[in-house]
């Protein structure tokens, strides 16, 4: 365990706790409108102040944590799933399967990812589920490359020949032996991927094409903050800070795992 992993884990666990226990931790109903308390600055009553509809910012941020983490984790889950499958197929079968999949990866990497995401969103309806899917299907290429490289180096090892000799099926060899052995670098990539996905989700929600109000997300709170810029600094400061610290946490964790892997 190194300092990066410890500090990263503390941050990650803190926000995971917020998301998990949101109903217990949020002092108010995040949707409760209070027109007598519009844009009040942070105080004992509203620790982080209120928004332009008088809703409690802290409560909205706590519930927003749920959305941001959920989108980040599921999007990365989807991308890891696609990446692992395509990467192991390419690495294990080689030849034309490999050529086809890797050319596909090359083509996908030609697109500025954010452009691709926006284009697909323009065709679908913005919403939490679509956002997760879109981020997932546009960000699996790194994982695919990693898995492929690992499997290429693993598949010549003795234990794989031994498995083949006793007649194990390709599916068994890939899922039981190759993928678990290639998991280290993927774990790093996935952890860093969560950070990236959270950044993308918040940007989309900020631009109004991600998570739609009234569902709170850090990105759409920031967007509201922009419209009241100069009048309510807390609306800009806290949601951005939350994104920043969460992303920092996953980055620290990912780099920490990478360092640990390099050592062993």
């Amino acid at each position, binding site marked *: 365990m190194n300092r990066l992993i410890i500090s990263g884990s503390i941050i990650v666990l803190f926000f995971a706790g917020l998301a998990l226990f949101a109903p217990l931790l949020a002092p108010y109903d995040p949707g409760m409108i209070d027109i007598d308390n519009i844009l009040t600055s942070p105080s004992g009553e509203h620790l982080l102040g209120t928004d332009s509809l008088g809703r409690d910012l802290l409560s909205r941020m706590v519930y927003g944590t749920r959305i941001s983490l959920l989108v980040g984790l599921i999007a990365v889950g989807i991308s890891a799933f696609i990446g692992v499958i395509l990467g192991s197929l390419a690495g294990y079968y080689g030849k034309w399967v490999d050529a086809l999949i890797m*050319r*596909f990866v*090359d*083509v*996908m*990497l*030609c*697109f*500025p*990812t*954010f*452009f*691709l995401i*926006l*284009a*697909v*969103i*323009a*065709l*679908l309806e913005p919403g939490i589920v679509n956002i997760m899917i879109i981020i997932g299907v546009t960000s699996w290429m790194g994982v695919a490359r990693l898995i492929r490289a690992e499997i290429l180096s693993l598949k010549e090892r003795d234990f794989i020949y031994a498995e083949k000799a006793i007649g194990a099926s390709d599916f068994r060899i890939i899922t039981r032996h190759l993928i678990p052995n290639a998991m280290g670098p993927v774990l790093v990539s996935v952890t860093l991927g969560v*950070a990236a996905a959270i*950044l993308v989700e*918040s*940007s989309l929600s*900020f*631009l*109004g*094409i991600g998570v739609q109000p009234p569902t709170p997300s850090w*990105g759409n709170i*920031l967007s509201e*903050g*922009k419209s009241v*810029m*100069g009048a309510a*600094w807390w609306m*800009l*400061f806290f*949601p*951005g*800070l939350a*994104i*920043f*610290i969460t*992303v*920092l946490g996953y*980055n*620290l964790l990912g*780099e920490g795992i990478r360092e640990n892997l390099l050592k062993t």
Partner: protein
Amino acid sequence: MIKYIFRRLISMVPLLFGITIITFTVIHIAPGKPTDMETQFNPKVSLEARDRIAKLYGLDKPLHVQYADWLRRMARFDFGVSFVDSRPVMKKISERIPVTLGINFVSIILILLIGVPIGISSAVRENTFYDRAMTVFVFIGFAMPTIWLSLILMDLVGVRWGILPVSGLKSLEFERLGLLEKIMDVSRHLVLPVFVSAFAGLAGISRYMRTNMVQVLRQNYIRTARAKGLSEREVIYKHALKNALLPIVTILGLSVPGLIGGSVIFESIFSIPGMGRLFYESVMSRDYPVIMGVLVIGAVLTLLGNLLADVSYAAVDPRIKLE
């Protein structure tokens, strides 16, 4: 050299082909046809517009015919006309490209001018307080959300202190200014967007440069250079630096899609009339011809960036044979 460039160009053809397939798929991926969505989401679009899309994409024809048509038009960069103002898509895009490329170019220069020295000095002072401080800075840079950084700068520098303009490229009185004032005016408008777009890239390049330099400094030829009696300055800034700098060229090429993609965010926030903002506006108004056009152009720019990186790398690294 020309032969090499030509060969690289040829190798791009399958990629271009792939790009058209993906873009074509994106159009058809939507549940229901884009024509349905059009009228459903955007009441401004009339029945006449619906016919226009149907005609543009030839949606009544079989799939392979549609693709062949699409490919034929791509080859001519003909993306049809915008739904919003009926102007040719390619014209709308080409008006906006210079601003986006210009900002990205300036920020790449900035990234290099600041990031490379940071990386080198950290590597040379590996594990000192300075190096650790720079590592912290790099982590901050990686985690900083562009939107947040932009908004905070807008709020502080623009709104509260009123030092710099926060929107657009020109002031209202631009036309009445002299040439020098015009340049000053645009520059002032560009300070924040360029800063924001350089900030994230800065962390990446410094980190990369540091890793490179640390590795290079451990190589045997560095020991040889020292054993020859060269000064520490010659060892680091001649022998080590050239080796550590070469791969940066490739990284710059690879960072093109990220930079172009990122331009959507800061151009939207700062209302810069570039390609990113055009894309954002088209997404909001579901202006499909423009969306598809920008998507393809973005990919083509990425390809060109990679080509440029490959060619420059081949030109500077003696180990790469061009023939």
